[in-house]
């Protein structure tokens, strides 16, 4: 191919990419740099200028002395540590159980598990709120009905149960996509390798872990990274259900960023402080993702 023709081909490709690139640069790359720079300033809502006074690393030092941020960080890690393995394990289990079913049954299961993913967060939380309701919730009614509890439990109003309730909802909205991906990955496993292993006398467990599992590793890695990021960024459920309460029991870093940026508008430098939290959160997500990539690569 001549250089002129190659150039024309490249140009066409770049032109196709250009619209997406404009949006990516405008709404991801540039805001990212603005966020990093603002985290080093005392910017607030009432400033006429985009950037406030430069204060270096003061916001970051203040962050790690802020007890609410520490509580939010701890809650965020609890959500990640509990939800990522359970989502992956449950999805793998369901995927393994249903991928050999006939097309109609398989499609039905995929629809059922994917439904909470495509349902809006607001609708999901409204239904869960009814279920968790302190006075008329179905959960309390059912548990009282079977004699497991005597007094109603204030599921979202008790610091002992509130975070667990959030994790349960997050779990139901997170498993849909991994199940679909695992069903697809299991369907693509090389059957000749499975048959060869079975001829050699491998048990079902050995076939799964020695033959299927390595072939599903790229899918697992993708699921781990996506679930980790989603768990770190848990916000809508908190905002709609508990607003970080009771007594900061459900505060997460994402919610605290929103709260600081848009509720503490009278606090000096609140935008800069919220951006500093965003930078810290991005660093943690980056570290976790890198660890997952490294572990998967070693496997």
């Amino acid at each position, binding site marked *: 191919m001549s250089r002129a023709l190659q150039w024309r081909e490249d140009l066409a490709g770049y032109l196709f990419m*250009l619209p997406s690139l404009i949006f990516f640069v405008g709404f991801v790359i540039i805001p990212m740099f603005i966020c990093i720079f603002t985290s080093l300033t005392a910017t607030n809502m*009432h400033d006429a200028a985009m950037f406030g006074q430069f204060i270096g690393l003061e916001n970051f030092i203040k962050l790690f002395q802020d007890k609410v941020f520490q509580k939010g960080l701890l809650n965020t890690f609890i959500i990640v540590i509990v939800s990522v393995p359970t989502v992956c394990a449950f999805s793998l289990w369901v995927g393994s159980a249903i991928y050999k079913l006939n097309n109609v049954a398989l499609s039905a299961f995929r629809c059922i598990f994917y439904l909470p993913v495509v349902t809006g967060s607001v609708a999901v939380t409204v239904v869960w709120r009814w279920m968790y309701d*302190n006075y008329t919730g179905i959960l309390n009614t059912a548990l009282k009905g079977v004699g497991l509890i005597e007094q109603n439990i204030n*599921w979202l109003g008790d610091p002992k149960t509130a975070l667990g309730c959030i994790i349960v909802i997050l779990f139901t909205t997170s498993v849909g996509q991994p199940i679909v991906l695992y069903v697809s990955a299991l369907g693509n496993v090389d059957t000749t390798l499975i048959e060869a292993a079975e001829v050699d006398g491998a048990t079902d467990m050995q076939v799964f872990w020695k033959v299927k599992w390595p072939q599903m590793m790229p899918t697992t890695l993708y699921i781990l990274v996506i679930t980790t990021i989603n768990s770190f960024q848990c916000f809508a459920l908190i905002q709609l259900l508990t607003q970080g309460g*009771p007594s900061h029991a459900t505060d997460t870093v994402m919610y605290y960023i929103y709260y600081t940026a848009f*509720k*503490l508008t*009278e*606090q000096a430098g609140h935008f800069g402080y919220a951006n500093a939290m965003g930078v810290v959160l991005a660093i943690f997500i980056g570290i976790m993702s890198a660890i997952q990539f490294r572990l998967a690569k070693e496997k």
Partner: protein
Amino acid sequence: MKMKKIIAAALAMAMALSLVACGNGNKDNGSQSKAPSSGSQGQNQGGDQSNPPSSSGASGITLWTYPIGDWKDENAVKALTDAFTAETGISVKVEYLDYTAGDDRVNTAITAEGTPDLIMEGPERLVANWGANGHMVDLKDMFDDTDLAEINAVNEGIMKACTYSNGAIYEYPLVMTAHCMAINKNAFEEAGALQYVDLENHTWTTENFIKAVEALYSKYNATVGAVFCAGQGGDQGTRALVNNLYGGTFTNAEHTQYLWNDPNNIKALEQLKSMKGIAFDPSLDGGKEITAFYQGILKMAFCWNIAQQLDPNSAKTGAEKTISGEDIVFMSFPSETGESQLCGGIWGFGIFDNGDQARIDASKQFIKFMCDSAHTVDAVKTANYFAVRTTAEGTDLSNIWADNPIMAEYTKLMPYLGDYYQVTTGWAAARTEWWNMLQEVGTGSDVATVLAAHEAAANAAAAG
């Protein structure tokens, strides 16, 4: 190949054009707001050739309103704005905010320099927050001695609440009310607790409140009243309950410092915490408490006012009735003497300083039309509250509710209207500290310790 190039170029052009369109999407007639318009129930009568020409030079203005009585009802508001447009030729685009996300929308608009021309709310936002931070227009030139006399004749605290410490007036008041609480009369009757309330004057003492809750709990063996603390919604109810029970304070008289850490407030919170029928509930805010009361689950509501009495839970199922038809009686908060200090609500209009004098003048025309003209009667009645002035350009406002026995009965509470302390500096942060404090009291923390800690945090926020 040629076709491929044409398609690529066309796609790129389309995307570039859409970007340009995004950047200029709000320069339409009657609106300079850059806030997202999707889902808005805006109405814009701009461009109507039959309208008289505007004397201010602006052809349209934008109004954002919080849900103040029926100022949340598009049809009711449209009747008012249509009348304004017919008289002045200025179109009004209205967007409706709620108390859950409204502040976020306004704050985002301030940051993006896309605020509306007018906003309808109370002094805690218009004066103490947006006004104090330099976003509002001083409306002092709209008041002459007659206006001030007409307003002061109703209550001298009104103009004080609408005026910032530097003397600037950031809110032109339209309506007011006293926030109160409510009881389920049928439930009280069944529990034998009706003897503890003065139904004639709608008052009761702290001692009788405690006895009533005990009687209700004995009857129903469940929570009968909730100190709700999920968020700031309706928090004036919990403040009034705690402050009145033993005469505690919230701020100093100058509104410069928060003073909740008062032995009387500690006593009140400890009393409430010890009562079996009262729960500190972090899963409820004011709105959800009203719903639980309306459904008959709770037997008393601490978040109530005349708008709720006229239309409980905004459900349009009949005035003064729960969902199952039980009677609702509004009550003053209990206090040792029976005479309490009620939190007030004063709602009116403020103008955002967008730097366009023609739009500011048009907005002032709108305020004058709604708050001080023959049309004020309609504006006040739409809000379902009481007028803040005796007359408006000769129209008597003192008897506009004479035909409504519920409103007439509710005027018995108006003398109990207390200090309007919501204009204290750092209000947004302080009210957050308040409900966080209630959550901690509810989880068993030491009352005196958490009260002191959150008062200190509120004062730190006030100090900036």
